[in-house]
């Protein structure tokens, strides 16, 4: 069973429905008893970093997430802000993230010549930096839908799973063993996003 964590940061119905369409059982929940039983967790989120940390703290979910990912070593996938919350901190806020993966989030910072805007919003390509089951069969023509102004900056290349280019290269997916995060929205990237969520859902619940 996959549990999509509900802590009040945006509509997560499309994640649930995409998993359902793929034939995987999932629920949206903030119930500790259900979360404790989860084989896999998805940490979604849209909004600002500190609001996300505050809502996560208030929801009482943090110890459950840490137990799931660090003690039981079960798969955890962060999406968009949910990915950024897996890191140590963000330029967007003052509060500490979950520090499950060694990275911080920084604002896009371009030289003027690019004439690029933030947020980075729209479809973009990805390139594999490292291998993981999550990006199995992801080809160079796969596109994903992005909406974000901050991006992960990893301390080590080992934690970069995918990179994309917007003005410059940035980590569009990060990972550390069983803990994974994608900056884009697989649930809004139809057949391409389905591949990612299917890879995640099909994985047995052991360390990657």
């Amino acid at each position: 069973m996959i549990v999509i964590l509900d802590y009040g940061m945006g509509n997560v119905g499309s994640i649930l429905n995409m998993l359902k369409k793929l034939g995987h059982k999932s629920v949206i929940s903030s119930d500790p008893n259900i979360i404790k039983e989860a084989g896999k967790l998805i940490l979604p989120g849209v909004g600002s970093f500190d609001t996300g940390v505050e809502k996560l703290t208030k929801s009482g979910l943090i110890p459950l997430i840490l137990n799931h990912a660090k003690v039981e070593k079960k798969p955890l996938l962060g999406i968009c802000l949910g990915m950024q919350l897996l890191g140590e901190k963000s330029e967007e806020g003052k509060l500490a993230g979950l520090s499950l993966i060694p990275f911080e989030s920084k604002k896009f910072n371009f030289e003027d010549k690019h004439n690029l805007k933030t947020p980075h919003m729209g479809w973009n390509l990805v390139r594999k930096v490292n291998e993981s089951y999550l990006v199995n069969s992801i080809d160079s023509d796969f596109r994903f839908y992005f909406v974000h102004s901050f991006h992960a900056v990893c301390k080590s290349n080992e934690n970069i799973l995918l990179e994309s280019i917007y003005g410059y290269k940035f980590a569009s997916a990060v990972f550390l063993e069983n803990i994974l995060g994608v900056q884009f929205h697989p649930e809004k990237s139809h057949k391409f996003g389905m591949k990612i969520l299917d890879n995640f859902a099909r994985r047995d619940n052991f360390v990657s």
Partner: protein
Amino acid sequence: MSLRPRIMPTLLLKEDALVKTIKFSKPNYLGDPINALKIFNGKGVDEVCILDIDASYKKKEPNFGYLKDIASEAFMPLSYGGGITNLNQIKEIFYIGYEKVIINSSFIENPNLIKEAANFAGSQSIVVSIDYKKNLFGQRFCYSHGGKAKQKIGPVELAVKAQEYGAGEIFLNSIDRDGTMQGYDIEIIKEVVDALTIPVTACGGAKNVADIKKVLLEGKAHAAAAGSMFVYYGPHKAVLINVPSEKDLFDNNIY
């Protein structure tokens, strides 16, 4: 032409049903918008635009509960327009799973709403839609409230103003061509594109892939939106949700 131009089905809602109009009137009932979205999911469309054509005219709030149900079924980015009058509604639209809001009547009545909205969410998420019609002398004037209220301003002028107020995109819709499948109003689309730095989505009149190619190449639109060609099929306009194949678009050098 942009690297990969967006091709965007536009779904019209009237009392929570999917309809298609001709010249902004004669709404033809087509069925359930969620069924249409499910088909678009499978076809992998770039983006879907959902417009409630009644809301502003009838001074109705967006139907958030229903719009949330729609968003939950969409595996692609969504934009919504219709009946939006204040920032709280805009926040709610984003919260329930929409990536962009589309504002038309409220921009004419209260242009500062665009400024507020762009400050809150960033320009990229704020689309101003412009509906216009040609008069007997060939002059084009904008209309609000579902094409019912004539304005004194033309589409180029209004688009420039929308950009100044912080809109991130213009959705340009020809009332005369709506539902007619006679091709896009290339001339004015190009004029608007040339007057702006922000992207323009052209709508109104598309019949087929050739029209889309023309509006992207000659009209220089950044995105092509259409209604009829995605919901009708064949010369007798049978109701059938359909999308040009990726191959078709490649073969026509659109991608």
